């Protein structure tokens, strides 16, 4: 599998570390913080289809990427720097 790093270009998957879905860190100040954090940390998107997920280019530019990937075929549909795509 190859991942198109927006900075480095297309690289073999072995250069990257996988993190999982792109759940956002909840607002810690809300009343039901524990439930929201539980959901964000433990209840993962696990679709059989396109999946938005975080990868870290550990052996490259050290960028965190948001990669959209079809997990049925491993086809990478897009990749963006997390600093830009996290919004």
């Amino acid at each position: 599998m190859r991942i198109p790093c927006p900075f480095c270009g297309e690289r073999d998957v072995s250069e990257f570390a996988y993190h999982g879905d792109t759940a956002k860190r909840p607002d810690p100040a809300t009343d039901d913080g524990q439930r929201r954090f539980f959901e964000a940390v433990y209840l993962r998107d696990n679709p059989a289809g396109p999946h938005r997920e975080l990868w870290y280019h550990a052996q490259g530019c050290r960028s965190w990427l948001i990669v959209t990937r079809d997990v049925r075929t491993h086809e990478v549909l897009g990749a963006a720097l997390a600093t830009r795509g996290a919004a």
Partner: protein
Amino acid sequence: MMPDSNRLASGGLIDRSKTIGFSFDGRSYRGYAGDTLASALLANDVRLVGRSFKYHRPRGIMTAGPEEPNALVELRAGARREPNTRATTIALFDGLEAWSQNRWPSLRYDVGAINWLLSPLFVAGFYYKTFMWPAAFWEKVYEPAIRRAAGLGRASGEADPDTYEKINAFCDVLIIGGGAAGLAAALAAGRSGARIMLCDEDCTLGGRLNSDLGEVDGRPGADWARHVTAELEALPNVRILSRTSVFGVYDGGTYGALERVSDHLAEPQPHQSRQRYWKIVAKRAVLASGAIERPIVFGGNDRPGVMMAAGVRSYLNRYAVKPGRRAAVYTGCDDAWTTAFDLARSGVTVTAIIDHRATVAPQLRAEATRLAIPVHLGADVTQTRGGRRGLQAITLRRADGREQGLPVDLLAMSAGWSPHLALTTHLGHRPRWSEAHAAFVPDALPPGMSVAGAAAGAFGLAEALRQGTALGTAAAEATGFAITAAPAPRADDEPIALAPFWHLGSSSKAFIDFQHDVTSADVALAAREGFRSVELLKRYTTLGMATDQGKTSNINGQAMMAELTGRSMAEIGTTMFRAPATPVAIGALAGHHRGRDFRPTRLTAGHGWAEQSNASFVEAGAWLRAQWFAQPGETDWLTTVSREVRDVRSKVGVCDVSTLGKIDVQGSDAGTFLDRVYINMFSTLPVGKTRYGVMLREDGLVMDDGTAARFAPDHYVVSTTTANAAKVMQHLEHARQVLWPELDVQLVSVTEQWSQYSIAGPGARQLLDRLLGDVVDVSDAALPYLGCVEFTWRDVPARLFRVSFSGELGYEIAVPAQYGDAAIRAIMEAGAEFGIIPYGTEALGVMRIEKGHVAGNEINGTTTAADLGLGRMMSQKKDYIGRVLAHRPGLTDPDRPTLVGLRPINPMARLRAGAHMLALGAAPTTENDEGYVTSIAFSPALGHWIGLALVKRGPARHGERMRAYDPVRDGDTEVELVSPVFIDPQGARLHG
């Protein structure tokens, strides 16, 4: 017997000027350069080459290619012995040594052949129904016997002496297979200037062109292949890899291939690898992997002398070998008639062409008549006869039902061809059944792949050349290279006609999977017992699971199951092919990375100095660290380590701590950032100070600990444990880039930039004053506990931290790593008068345990800050990673195992980490398990072993006695729970 008695006087692609000596089962023979072991054996009239898996049936050479199920040998001897090597793919080399397999005491007289008498018992899955009583007999009696009987060849049992390499390659177009279609594709694409790789598993490009007599562009096919090869070799943008099998298709246009660099030599040349594993990334691929000829399932079809028709042509035309003297051909396909014609022209008596079909093309009949070959249409072979030497006669059943015997020693059979499409299915795409081809043909394809020639069902030469040219052109164009259209190479052959047929009912064993001895009766049994899916059929009968991967057998078994269960081939489908398409040596996939090169080794800048100082080293992740420094006369490690601890606590010692992770954190928001990743506050840390901090994962458990030093309002340096350095860096980058991209903070690892030495002991300040007094004030007033300072030392930037892991007056000095060696030598020199000693990780560990400091044994991913006695550090004033989930009930349960110290009641008793904590008198059960010992040390100061443990409600139980239960080491020690701080609880020494 005359040597080489079956060799034709002329012809073939062998080099008769180069004679090669080899041996099989200890007997010497001769062959020629260009031979395979199989062709040379056949040339020497060796027909019996192996014994089958289950029934120990005598077996001979069946094919001339990598699909060979029978002719497997142990090649080479000693540490280089290779089991299950196909004689049909071994290039002959001088001194080649091969041995038959799965027989005892000899190939001719094999005791295992008695299994044949028991064959009615040994049907598919017989072992599931028996061998159950008595239960204890399975491991003791039945299974050892089964295991000894199974397997074919023997591994050497010794370390592989050869080397392997991995290579990365990138190209525009990868062409897989160098037969007619592949060569045509390579020629078309190569002329465009695109970067081409052409992989072919044979030593010579050409594929069937080297075995068949058809012409291309007006010259013999083999000549044409040589000519095209030369043109391709001259193109700088084309790379040809012969002896290279593409074994797998992976995501993103990645292909795995294996090049047999020196397997055709007795052993590799100096600095030459045995094999290379290529990882090829290709924008496009043209698969031109050809087709595999199908056997016919009839009684006795496994006898030596029953061969595949196209294989027979290979032996005749490529190797100039007559595989028999009196032959018959049995087929349902036009192609096999060519075998009869070629045999006849080579001087072999062809006694019959037996075609299952009632009618065939008139020109075939005409040619047979011309060559005086009797033809039987609508006829079959129902039985064979022969002995260990192989086939002696066949039984022919004519169209009118009458049977007759035909004495022959060679039967060439063919039920047609199956596209070799394994590589089209590796990404999960399924082939489709084509009635027109009577075969599964590629359907949906991996991205970027196209299929040309016989692999796509184009079994005729002209069509294969046309497809190759067209798809090679298209692939190059798709990667942006313009093609000046050139015509496809010409051949004028006819499309091949065939009628599919699969098996004949037979009273004797009719083999489907030759290597696994799966017969038509086994398939029938599977159908009867409900194993009707092709996948269940495979698993129940082991059809297609032998080393030939079912290349010749799958289709026949599936067809028979379809027929037995009244389904069409399209309905029943085929099993999936998975990588590797050709078996690959495990060593090749490891490449360079074995032995000491399994993983790289990280060495600190002071490593050479430590070696010279008689250090013993220990692996700490990828690092090698000095574990202790034995002095003359010290014979056991405990003496050395205790001496090191005593010397540090009484004088001064130095320890290389460069392996600790170091992260430079800068930016106007650096303090805010650290507040969010540590449980305690760092924005309030004064410049020139360090602070101990703990990081949690977002799930509330401790991830790592360390210190952060502040050198400027916008500049911190964070330290991590050695083990977690990369993990913490990733975690902080996640926080910076994903969680809070709005913060002005920059991170970079400086682990490698700084060599860092811990100097500890009552003499530490004096030493540093001697060493650095001219450039930095190390007095307690100027550099109190947890102070830090940057300065220039002998024109080099340096840092000094007043920190302590040992509980002694301690400092860490850091210099850029290129000066790390010089620095440790300078420290040792200056420390001589203070009695300095170097100490290693063991003494470091002893001293931290004496002080109750937690380390990796306690920060094991399952402990909370409170478990480690650090709960009070958790800030109430701010949010930080892990704060919310750390408050879940399961993580705040007062019953959780919590850090305590341990002291053995018997001061002589030894403690061991990994022991479990039980109440005195409690039975050793899981329910009574109250915790475990995490770390132990012999404390020279106390004169006995001490330990740290995580025990339920530990801190409330100081003074209580428990058992440290360690049955795997016969340990059961009574201990007292005590404070984890064994030495200097007030910290007087630290502040000294």
